[in-house]
């Protein structure tokens, strides 16, 4: 098991985001179409990464509620891109299941029936190679 | 001939900074505590157009591993046009150095304004990294000048 610190670093590395740039304006949360279904809100995501509480993040409902519509990425005035952080957190989960990349056969059992379609498309784009 | 790999390689870097913009930019980097390598030593000149190609060749002759010249952004020269002349001179000189086989990463021109402390520090970081990767200047050093 990796330390929380190294997981936080990995999230930063995967996403290419510097969460310290966040000025807590909340435009991400304001823009988020899945806001109401999330337990940890997009703007809070940034604080969780800063505070290195990745465990809460990967256990959160929000992780799988994000549609990856990237409205927050598009509109963030500080280039913090919470959507990318969420994406990176998801990848951490995937990697920690022992593989960096998903095999096609693994996908069906991983899919939560509640998972939004858009996320699947987004995942396919990411992992197709 | 192979260059001896030396873990302790500390490049000698000479930076010519114009008094009005880049030297002030370096001051701002200092007062903002934006660190960069101690291998960079700054020489103050009134304007980038004061930098004679002879100075640059002399630095290499004396064992400098990299020479960087910083001036006001084109259009912002304190003396109106100095950096425009400097730009042509340095372009031609660097091209000539490249032509005779000196790695072109050893010389650089960057325009840094008095307000760009962060850019100054960043530029120096990049330049030091570049020179470190190129290693010791062996093509231009006059070994007699070593002590």
């Amino acid at each position: 098991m990796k330390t929380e610190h190294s997981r936080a670093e990995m999230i930063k590395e995967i996403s290419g985001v510097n969460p310290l740039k966040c000025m807590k304006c909340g435009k991400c949360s304001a823009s988020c179409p899945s806001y109401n279904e999330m337990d940890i809100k997009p703007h809070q995501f940034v604080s969780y990464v800063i505070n290195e509480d990745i465990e809460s993040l990967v256990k959160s409902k929000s992780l799988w509620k994000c549609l990856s519509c990237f409205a927050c990425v598009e509109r963030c005035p500080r280039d913090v891109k919470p959507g990318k952080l969420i994406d990176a957190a998801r990848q951490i989960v995937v990697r920690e299941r022992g593989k960096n990349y998903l095999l096609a056969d693994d996908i069906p059992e991983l899919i939560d029936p509640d998972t939004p379609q858009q996320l699947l498309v987004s995942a396919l784009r990411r992992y197709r190679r | 001939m192979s260059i001896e790999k030396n873990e302790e390689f500390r490049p000698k870097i000479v930076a010519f900074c114009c008094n009005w913009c880049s030297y002030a930019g370096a001051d701002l980097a200092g007062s903002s505590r934006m660190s960069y390598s101690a291998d960079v030593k700054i020489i103050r000149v009134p304007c980038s157009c004061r930098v004679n190609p002879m100075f640059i060749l002399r630095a290499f002759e004396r064992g400098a591993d990299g020479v960087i010249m910083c001036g006001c952004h084109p259009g912002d020269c304190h003396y109106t046009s100095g950096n425009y002349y400097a730009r042509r001179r340095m372009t031609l000189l660097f091209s000539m150095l490249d032509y005779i086989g000196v790695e072109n990463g050893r010389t650089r021109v960057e325009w840094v304004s008095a307000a760009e402390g962060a850019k100054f520090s960043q530029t120096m970081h990049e330049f030091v990294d570049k020179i470190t990767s190129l290693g010791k200047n062996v093509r231009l050093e006059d070994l007699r000048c070593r002590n």
Partner: protein
Amino acid sequence: MQRIGVFVCHCGTNIAATVDVKKVVEMALHEPGVVHAEDYAYMCSEAGQELIHKAIKEKHLTGLVVCSCSPRMHETTFRNAAEKAGLNPYMVEIANIREHCSWIHKDIEEATEKAVILMRAAVAKVNLDAPLKPGESRVTKRALVIGGGIAGIQTALDIAEAGYPVDIVEKTPSIGGRMSQLDKTFPTLDCSSCILTPKMGEVNAHPLINIYTYSEVESVSGFVGDFTVEIRKKARSVDMNKCTGCGVCQEKCPSKKTPSEFNRGLNTRSAIYTPFAQAVPNVPVIDRDACIKFKTGKCGICSKVCQAGAIDYDQIDEIVTEKYGAIVVATGFDMIKLDKYDEYAYSQSKDVITSLELERIMNAAGPTGGHLERLSDGKAPKEMVFIQCVGSRCADNRGKSYCSKICCMYTAKHAMLIRDKYPDTNVTVFYIDVRTPGKNFDEFYRRAVEDYGVNYIKGQVGKVIPQPNGKLLVQGADLLDNKQILKEADMVVLAAAIEPNPDVRKIATMLTASIDTNNFLTEAHAKLRPVESPTAGIFLSGVCQGPKDIPETVSQAGAAAVKAIGLLAKDKLLTNPCTAHSDELLCNGCSQCANVCPYGAITYEDKEVNDHGVRETRRIAVVNDALCQGCGACTVTCPSGAMDLQGFSNRQILAEVDAICR
């Protein structure tokens, strides 16, 4: 051989904490020419300067090296100290071991090693220093103020009050600037024009102030104390001397479709126009792009109705050339363009407006006669939403990285005024932070919340969606309640970021004044010289230097005036003695140096020289010390090395190179 003293400053712990100053002193004593070296806590202090004085006297020093902060900080201090002790001030060199060393390095060994090298380079340079004597230049006792907003007006008044003539150059047809567009001012809620128009009148009537409106600076040459400026007086098509300002021409003008610049395009104006009723001068201009006479040759109504016969269609641009001792830049600001912020629907809905547009709507002389109404249907809004930080504090390339400073306060003002005048209208402000440093500022903001019931919500708005019913759906989040908010509003007001007037770049280039990445003019020192440009003789007034509210602008305008007056009060200025000189035995007279001299300081003379016994007449370059500013462009152009720069000579710079590469 020089006798050099090396003085190493601790700067408290600023230097001494990272640089082993004792070691620098010890190493200095091994350098050629160094006969004395010591360190002290604060070299720039009286006591420190006393040490220098004593050493010069006792050790008969001929040159000094001070290892301290940047020469841009204390070079003058130490030069003066040297001069007091009878040493030529140009025999002083500074090794910058603070900004370029102790402040940026952490490792003591590394920093000390670098400090020693910087000291060596300075010693090497002093060894080749020669005493220099500054020349003198005259000061033209007249100031130019570029920009006729409140900053320019205040600066001009203050300079003129001190007894010096001032010219104001204003691009638009009237002085007054942004302040004339404002309705009320925070935190006192005075009417903006009530306090501005008397000042405009005062400027207009002042015997020492000359206003060029509808004019632009065309070119600037010269230097501190002696600038030559060309001003383009654009053809107004109206004779300033004949016009009585009756306004009939504007009434009768048939071309009335041009968007009014003054009202931010919310309504239209005639082709012959004064921007606003209280314009100074109260003389209209003809907008030749809109005028039917200029476009088709027919019309000429204004000329027919003008009783004074002031209309002159044949007027042409006029170039006025004037000399000035000091120039004050007061070019002000504009709102940023919002075309990159589609999510706020600014371009899609007429009811999404900027704060400056709201100012015009709230103003009795504005497009709606002061009634708060929706521009789409003229209805009074019941739900108003204000969005803060639109384009300010942005790290992406859409907006500005800085805080525009005035938006929090004017939004509170707008909210308060609306709640006061229209108590039925709800006002919601979406904010990121509310910033109210300033006298009575926070109290003002609290009043908006506590007394006027303005609803402040922490959280930036994500999107504004125009609805089919004409309403605006505002999607935001309340970060404190952790709730997403959907609010139907009638009007949305965007606190758009402010940016320096786009013309400032051109002006800064003409003045060779430096400008930062945001196009704000750079001050000579962020704390200690905030109203001076690093370029001598150029002063900064108002928002051109950075975001400011009115009181700050006025105080900075006064400060800039004081600095300009300080310069104009001098009869003569000492010129920089670091000028170029040509060695007549080496000069080829080839004229290449004159080609690159930006000041026209180099001329050629046929001079008889004695070159090692050979007498002949040669064409020799001669530098005019009063014109030469010491850039050194000529020195590099000169192939024979005849041209050299005093204080930065070829051999000195080479000595520094050698010392660093040693």
